């Protein structure tokens, strides 16, 4: 009952011989990304401390790397790569849309409350 697996990752740049080999390959990739995250987190290079769209560049890098990890966990460990496009879209688009919406609403509101504390009449008593 050996199932068909799509063995190419990075858009066909790397092609594995067997599914087992692909699993180890993805593990190596995820470990490298985690190591990069940890190193950046410990050393916090001064050059990445600038702000971009209201957040530190370093934090944007962390979020991007997290999304890359999430992609490979879902696509290769959860075998999303081998599912039909319709199932894939049903799961991914729904979640991505709702999560983006939720994050936007809450972070926008959080930033607003911060401004009220800072500039408004309501002060935190110290």
């Amino acid at each position, binding site marked *: 009952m050996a199932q068909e697996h799509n063995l190419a990752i990075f858009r066909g740049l790397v092609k594995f011989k067997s599914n087992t080999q692909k699993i180890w390959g993805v593990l190596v990739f995820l470990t490298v990304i985690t190591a990069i995250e940890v190193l950046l987190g410990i050393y916090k290079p001064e050059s990445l401390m600038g702000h971009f769209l209201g957040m530190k560049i370093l934090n944007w890098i962390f979020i991007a790397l997290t999304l890359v990890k999430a992609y490979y966990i879902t696509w290769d460990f*959860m075998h999303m790569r081998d599912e039909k496009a319709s*199932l894939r879209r049903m799961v991914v688009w729904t979640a991505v849309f*709702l*999560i983006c919406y*939720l994050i936007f609403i809450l972070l926008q509101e*959080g930033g607003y409350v*911060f401004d009220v504390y800072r500039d408004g009449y309501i002060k935190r008593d110290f």
Partner: protein
Amino acid sequence: MNTTVATTGTEGKAWGGGNQPLNASYGKMMMWFFIVSDALTFSGFLAAYGFSRFKFIDSWPIADEVFTHVPFFHGNYPMIYVAFMTFVLIMSSVTMVLAVDAGHHLNKTKVTWYMFLTIIGGLIFVGSQAWEWGTFIKGEYGAVQTKGGNILQFGEYVDVDGAQKFKRVAVSDFAKVAEGERAQHESKNGLWFVSEGSIPEYSVDEIYAGLQANSNILVRNQILNEHGHKTILTREESLKQLKDNGKLFVQGANLQVNEYGSSLFADFFFFITGFHGFHVFSGVMINIIIFFNVILGTYEKRKSYEMVEKVGLYWHFVDLVWVFVFTFFYLV
């Protein structure tokens, strides 16, 4: 018995249920639906954490200063242990997907071993999580909470390779303990219908006396400066802040107080990592059930290891959530 429409002439055809448009079995699809809804639950929690953090963006605790411990080692190792935990969980995800792969080849021995390793990985993770909680609850240096609910921490400047560096000092190292200053209220020596929780180890006056006696110690408040460090007050300002606003000595973190800063940080930490840890725990339990089913040969008889695949999906999802928790609690 078929009492209603017996045949419609569409059996086996697309509109008669003859095909699976998504090419996935019922069980697997329902697992995907559950995962989507659970993902939204976790996103709700993490987005709420983001909300609180944006609300106090200039005074949020710095995770690097909170989680610095590694079991069996002394010293300051930010992130190392949590990186190890992340690796353990990814590794157990790998053994899980190897178990699924072995299941496709109907290799019972391999599935058994890989399931076993997955369970061990899950247990190591939950154990580490418990240790992390324990360390966080116990705390390290202690701090003083102000009337407004903010935190004042203590430290001193020391020379490290010629540069002045601010190093934290534990309250227990400088507070001047005054004997018999405050007795615990007990119902037998006071009002019998009133009880009192444990009183803090030090009173603010004792800490103030200690601060006065040690001229090298300064107070650090929660506000982040433009370099992302907490603001360190001058000596006069330190004494003044502690005298005017100090209210309660706090050690460690719980749902009410947090020596590292905003108590919301501790609340969300306990809630989100707790909820995730609960997922890992139930994942381990489900894995154990499947593990025994594999040993008993249930799936061997079925000629299909799809159950392993389904719990595998859940297990990878737990890993997936941790990747996000790791980023938003420890890195960003």
